[in-house]
């Protein structure tokens, strides 16, 4: 269990090693607070999505032989889930909504979440393992977001060469963060 978690969090980091969720990674890291909010929102929805999609696959789609509807059903479920959560938070937990809810619309198209729900199935994880995996992946996402936000904060006034300003330097920075993350490889055997 710890292994699944550490591998998902550090060794096979969803952003840095697996290139998932890059859109929001670039878009939402201009500020550390923002990246933390986004990260926790993703964590929340990923776990929720896993908790819904895993039983759906195991108890509905697979027995009915509807495995081919996986993509369609999962994306619809996640999209509806996000809407539902957004609505619920807005109405009942306005404090949390203010902190997290504004990031929810972005999450529908966050490929990390969809990828996690697919991988839970294809890796053959049981329910608990799936939850652990989804927490690991999404905290890995949060970690990568926060680290890039830190680097961005650090370089925001640097005399970066004109041709690298903007997105290129973010990816160059990500490259170096990924190099540092290579150090975690093999940490869990």
């Amino acid at each position, binding site marked *: 269990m710890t292994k699944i978690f550490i591998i998902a969090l550090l060794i096979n980091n969803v952003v840095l090693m697996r290139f998932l969720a890059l*859109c929001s990674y*670039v878009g*939402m890291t*201009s500020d550390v607070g923002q990246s933390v909010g986004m990260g926790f929102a993703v964590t929340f929805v990923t776990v929720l999505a896993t908790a819904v999609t895993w039983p759906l696959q195991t108890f509905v789609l697979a027995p009915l032989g*509807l495995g081919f*509807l996986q993509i369609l059903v999962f994306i*619809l479920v996640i999209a*509806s889930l996000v809407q539902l959560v957004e609505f619920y938070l807005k109405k009942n937990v306005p404090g949390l909504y203010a902190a997290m809810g*504004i990031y929810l*619309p972005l999450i529908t198209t966050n490929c990390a979440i969809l990828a996690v729900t697919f991988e839970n199935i294809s890796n053959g994880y049981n329910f608990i393992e799936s939850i652990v995996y989804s927490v690991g992946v999404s905290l890995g996402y949060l970690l990568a977001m926060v680290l890039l936000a830190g680097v961005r904060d650090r370089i925001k006034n640097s005399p970066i060469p004109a041709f690298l300003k903007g997105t290129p330097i973010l990816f160059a920075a990500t490259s170096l963060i990924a190099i540092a993350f290579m150090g975690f490889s093999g940490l869990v055997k």
Partner: protein
Amino acid sequence: MMTILITLGFSALLAFVLGALLGFFREKFKVERDPLVDAVRGALPGANCGGCGYPGCDGYAEAVAARRAGPNLCSAGGSKTAEAVAALVGVAANAEDLVSVLLCSGTKEKALDKGAYVGIPTCRGAKLSTGSTKACAWGCQGFGDCVAVCKFDALAMGDDGLPKVDYAKCTGCGMCAEECPQKLFAIVPKSRKGSVVLCSNRNVVKANVMKACKAGCIKCEACVKICPEACIAMVNGIPVTDYAKCTSCGKCVEKCPTKCYALLETDVMGKKKVAVNA
């Protein structure tokens, strides 16, 4: 065949649930908000990719409607979306177009430096630690704080050490006027005609002005005397034109011994290209 039947049943169920949810949401989501937000939101692709730096299309639409964000940040939608959004939020045209005019002619050659300034290359920094890097305490410092603050790319430092206004781009927003530590910019209607003195030196001692700058107003009041309409008066040591009376005859411009007089419509706004290259 069985699979297809199951599929049909399943999809019908799915669609029903979705439809119900959707209707439910629509009903519950009736939150009062700026119709402009909805309009902008409608023009956006709805990909919710976050590429704009705002949390989702809704967040961006709100920012645009509140004028906190420009219309061109949606990368998913591309130029078409940008145009549509820009059209929606298009800032209402000013009743009168304004432009910014620099009231200083103290070019590098004409205005003497007071000393060799070393320090941060901004007008404000220079003024704070030296009073003025120029011998003239009112003159343009020439570090281009105004250029840096202009959002419309309408200002550029000329080779002569003075900023040049591109009147095709200037919107008269007044940012430069606010930023300039010497308060050298006047915001005037673009349609204004008449004479203006391109100097802000208020030193009453003629000799001091002459020592400091060859293009300074030396308070000779020749303009006041020559004006056939009697529309020029000295205010706080600087001649001021009454545009209600000024006929733009140009006599004051001709008479001015230090050539710091100019006509707004020709000398200032009319020669933008020449000025930049000069």
